[in-house]
């Protein structure tokens, strides 16, 4: 079996000897609720989402072989907070109390979700979406909706900036992505950027939260 994949080189960096190389794993997609493929790099320091460029009627020649599956897999870094957010919201609904993270991020259907807790900086960014308590040496977390909306709003702002820099067509006109025009056209407003960015961010959060974010 083989696949064609484009990923940052850092995915396969092996600092020293380690058996914990990059791992493809299925996790709970926070938007659809279904299983989707993700990648953890060495020692699960970073999370990546796996997307595929997929058009009909393609296959690959790879050296002296033919591969029926004509997808091109693309691996891009993803903020693990999006993944953890689902479990925080769930815990808030079910328990409504402060809990240690390793008791929040548990999933019988996707046991490798615990690898999310190894991601670098996750713990230092949790405060964007949670209230924290420290008892002894242990930290306890509880979902905070207002903080989360504020954090997501920042994500939307960052996305708007990226859309403008990337000259992505966010206007109402349908236009081929390979068509290079002089600009967005006079009919594109700031609201269009925000709506588009909200839509993109919504791909990574539950539907209810997306609706709240839209109102926010």
């Amino acid at each position, binding site marked *: 079996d083989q696949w064609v994949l484009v990923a940052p080189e850092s995915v396969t960096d092996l600092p020293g000897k380690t058996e914990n190389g990059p791992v493809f794993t299925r996790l709970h997609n926070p938007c659809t609720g*279904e299983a989707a*493929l993700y990648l953890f790099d060495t020692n699960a320091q970073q999370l990546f989402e796996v*997307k595929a460029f997929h058009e009909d*009627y393609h296959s690959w020649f790879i050296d002296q072989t033919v591969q029926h599956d004509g997808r091109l897999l693309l691996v891009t870094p993803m903020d693990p907070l999006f993944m953890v957010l689902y479990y925080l919201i769930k815990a808030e609904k079910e328990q409504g109390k402060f809990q240690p993270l390793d008791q929040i991020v548990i999933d019988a259907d996707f046991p490798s979700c615990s690898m999310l807790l190894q991601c670098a900086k996750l713990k230092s960014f949790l405060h964007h979406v949670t209230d924290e308590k420290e008892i002894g040496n242990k930290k306890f977390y509880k979902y905070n909706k207002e903080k989360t909306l504020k954090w997501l709003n920042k994500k939307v702002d960052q996305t708007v900036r990226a859309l403008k820099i990337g000259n992505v067509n966010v206007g109402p006109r349908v236009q081929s992505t390979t068509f290079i025009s002089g600009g967005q056209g006079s009919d594109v407003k700031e609201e269009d950027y925000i709506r588009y960015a909200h839509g*993109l961010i*919504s791909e990574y959060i539950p539907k209810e939260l997306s609706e709240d974010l839209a109102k926010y």
Partner: protein
Amino acid sequence: MDLSDFERDNTGSCRLSSPVPEVCRAEDCCLGIDEAGRGPVLGPMVYGICFCPLSRLGDLEALKVADSKTLSEAERERLFGKLEQARDFVGWALDILSPNLISTSMQRRAKYNLNSLSHDTAMALVQLALDQGVRVTQVFVDTVGPADKYQQKLKERFPEVEVTVRPKADSLFPVVSAASICAKVARDHAVKRWKFLEDLKDLKMDYGSGYPNDPKTKEWLSQCLDPVFGFPQFVRFSWSTAQLILDGRAVPVRWEDSEEGAGGSPAAGRGSGTPSLLSYFARTQAATERQSHRFFHERGLETVADL
């Protein structure tokens, strides 16, 4: 006959022509058109024209360029030599159409069938003669498809020229016989000197006559078949003989314009129906499938659930 250009690159088409005799520019001429290699599944098809002044038709007849189908390869060579020696009043031109060109024309999305290809090639050669200053007043040609339609096509294209489309024209008109000789000699040479681009390893070149109903040819086709790539470019993929072998023994391949619902036609085959215009705009989506954000589906990007 110098086919070195075609020997170097036998993937497209190649034109050859003799110098135009001065007398053909000064006097009214008749021009004959014929073809060679229409039926075989192997090798190129060649269209040829031959022209001479009306006043010298008797001299052309005296060369005894008879119905070339009855002649051996060696006899055809000899007659072509005679035509060359008569270069003071006989001119000729050829278009060699490679098997690759024939196959791709017949199988591309906007189908270009063999009859249209033949008509266009013939007309292009007549135009070449006119452009070179030959005073063509009469054209004789064998039927390709319905005779009346071909005649009308030629008359519309060359209104100043008297056109005669007749079955078995090569046995009726010496100038067509002469064109037939030129075309057949060219095909003989092209086939004999064919350079295979593909590495065919130890495959024996014993392919028989090259005609579809020749068991030796069919056997050779089966032997040279690659399950992914099909045949060498010496083979006309668009011929049903070739397609049947691919159907049975090659891996299924589907193209964007393959027939709807088909399991997949082999390497050479494509559907013949015109796809709906709508099929170019939307991919069908199951009713329950959630559509991702336009950023992703405009770029053909989707979430991966499984490898």
